[in-house]
């Protein structure tokens, strides 16, 4: 918000500068130069107009304003104005002033009003500028810190999201469906694409397992904090006696590598379709276009039956497989690095209970940073509330990464 104020401030300043050159139009307009305490830096950020034509010993506006005598005079004028205003306002009840005196005071008020208004505006602007400066400084400080933190190899990539119902039967599956919807909302909130790769629902509207390919700016970077076990505590819809149950679901976040960075040898794959039996081709007509791909060296499997086109199913299954293989590769490489951290991303994090959704108390608690927010219904929309929590997790993680970096640096020093 303050950044926007700064921009509007800058644009307005460009309007002011010309006015400064035509003194006859100064009256009624605030003229102000930037505070002098940081001249060098402000010359870059806060641009002023051209300086006025030089005359011998002409004081700059700043110098004038800095003069104590001027400040005192301004105070005097303000005092006078306030007194006159008061007198004029309460003249009806007060018989202290005569008609003529009142008239004189009224005139003074109207004469001084523009000046007083300008002074007040000036004060206001001074304050705004100070605030904005501080904000800018904060922003830059944060930027420096963020740039210090080493980026993960996968931070720039897209991802495959996998949700799986855990303990709790039908209730767990219903919760899984709600979570999948929440992440679809989150993707929409950030303008990412959300392409369902797999979707295995149960009879009563729950979700056993589903996966989606999410792509967009910073998608993996943000979503990685959602990986782990999520726990819900509420009275299930099917529960007749009103008892609270605890069910779980697991979220896995697999970074999606680009074609160049990670290639799979087609010879390592076995592709299974229903066309496999018989002669295939023109001999058979089928609507079963499900595809299952097995990566022979590792035994990893991906399947898809989301589409009517077999080719599309194959493409989606490949996407899923690539993400799984890449994730496996990354885990091997980074498991040592992340072992110490609280905010886990990776194998350790997968079985860790990271968050609890408690309906009775209407709260969501993230256990990694001990953060609680309220309003479960709104949270499950995947919008502001989830984003806030996610940002906090990110900040915490950044801090930990930074600390780690500094520690390494300290240890390295002789």
């Amino acid at each position, binding site marked *: 918000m303050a950044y926007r104020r700064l921009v509007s401030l800058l644009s307005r300043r460009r309007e002011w500068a010309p006015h400064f050159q035509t003194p006859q139009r100064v009256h009624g307009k605030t003229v102000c130069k930037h505070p002098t305490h940081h001249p060098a830096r402000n010359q870059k950020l806060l641009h002023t107009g051209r300086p006025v034509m030089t005359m011998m010993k002409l004081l700059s506006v700043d110098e004038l304003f800095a003069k104590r005598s001027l400040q005192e005079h301004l105070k005097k004028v303000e005092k006078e104005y306030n007194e006159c205003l008061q007198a004029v306002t309460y003249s009806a009840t007060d018989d202290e002033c005569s008609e003529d005196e009142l008239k004189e005071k009224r005139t003074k008020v109207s004469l001084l009003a523009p000046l007083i208004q300008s002074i007040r505006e000036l004060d206001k602007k001074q304050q705004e500028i100070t605030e904005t400066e501080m904000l800018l400084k904060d922003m830059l400080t944060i930027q420096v810190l963020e740039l210090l933190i080493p980026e993960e190899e996968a931070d720039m990539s897209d991802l495959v999201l996998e949700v799986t119902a855990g303990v709790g039967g039908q209730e767990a599956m219903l919760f899984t*469906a709600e979570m999948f919807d929440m992440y679809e909302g989150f993707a929409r909130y950030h303008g990412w694409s959300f392409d*369902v790769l797999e*979707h295995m*629902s149960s*009879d009563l*509207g729950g979700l056993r397992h589903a996966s989606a390919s999410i792509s967009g700016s910073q998608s993996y970077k943000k979503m990685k904090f959602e990986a782990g076990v999520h726990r819900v505590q509420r009275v299930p819809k099917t529960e007749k006696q009103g008892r609270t149950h605890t069910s779980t679901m697991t979220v896995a976040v697999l970074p999606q590598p680009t074609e160049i960075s990670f290639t799979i040898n087609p010879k390592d794959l076995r*592709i299974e*379709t229903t*066309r*496999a039996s018989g*002669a*295939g*081709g*023109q*001999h*058979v*007509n*089928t*609507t*079963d*276009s499900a*595809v299952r791909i097995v990566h022979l060296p590792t035994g990893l499997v991906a399947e898809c*039956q*989301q*589409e*009517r*086109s*077999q*080719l*599309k199913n*194959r493409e989606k299954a490949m996407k899923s497989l690539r993400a799984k293989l890449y994730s496996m590769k990354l885990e091997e490489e980074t498991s040592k690095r992340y072992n110490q951290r609280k905010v886990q991303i990776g194998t350790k994090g997968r079985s860790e209970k990271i968050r609890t959704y408690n309906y009775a108390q209407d709260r969501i608690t993230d256990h990694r940073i001990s953060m609680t927010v309220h309003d479960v219904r709104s949270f499950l929309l995947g919008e502001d509330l989830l984003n806030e929590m996610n940002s906090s997790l990110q900040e915490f993680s950044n801090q930990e990464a930074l600390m780690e970096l500094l520690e390494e640096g300290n240890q390295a020093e002789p």
Partner: protein
Amino acid sequence: MWWRRTLSRSCRCCLGCGRSGAKGIWSLHTRPVCSAPALPAGRITALQALDVWKRHFEEKGVTEPEHSSQYIIAHLLGAKTIESVDQQSLTQFLSKEKTEQVWQLCTRRLSRMPVQYVIEEWDFRDLTLKLRPPVFIPRPETEELVELVLTDLQRHPGAAETRRQTCLEVGCGSGAVSLSLLKSLPQLEAFALDRSQDAVDLSRENALRLGLQDRLKVYHMDVIKDAERMLGLFSSISALVSNPPYLFSEDMATLEPEILRFEDHAALDGGEDGLNVIRQILALAPDFLSDRGRVYLEVDPRHPPLVRRWTEENVEGLRYAETRHDASGRPRFCILQKEESHKDPDQD
């Protein structure tokens, strides 16, 4: 068409045998080909309808009972697959009209009509095509045929800047192959032909629906009977593509009812060795193709060595380039290339 009459009888009969139609279309002697479950008295949900019809298809020996009911009902709910239908739509009660539609379409499936004809559409690569009997329903293998052609055409966009890439499809059916190529290659111009007027009409219709009609010309022609006319029409083609009838005549009898009863046999039967149409295409190919232009054929898994030998012995100017396999690992595609012309280089 014999199948149309069977359809209408079975449909109307099942929907209301009690009604003696004011139009008096059906006679009392009509025996229903199918016996569908009666329309439910009360209201039912989509989930319940899925279950009713799945069981009924199973009872009547209809293949892929679960998929059939899922695709038909999903289609009526405005989705392509049952997975993409939201929970609410599945658990809500269907309107009377919608229920009747479900019954009507599922009853068609009872007669072993392929699902693609029942819902009158299907997906092929990234297109959705309108489909109607008896025009041949594109198979998944053919999606890979398109992939082969695309890879080559994208790698070699054409020698001269002035000369556009062109392709010729023999036996276009619903237009799947040509339209897929056109969709992926904005610079391509396509010619397609089919001996069936139904196929020609359907290809044109699909072209229009996909906005590709400007770059596709469809001809009602038979590659065997109209060979001379074709020679006058097509030349300097970059790619000749075909999924020709390639079944062995003796295999026709073993086909499932979905194919035998509803698809055009002429689109399937390739003669005693399945190569009748293929031979004709190969014989004419050198005259259609530009130099280094290629032929792409989908064939029966037994064909590739036969095609290679026959071409070597009978077609001058055409070299067998390679055999490619489909996703199931079967030899499925033959690629042949026009040899460099030894004629006068000015004649092109």
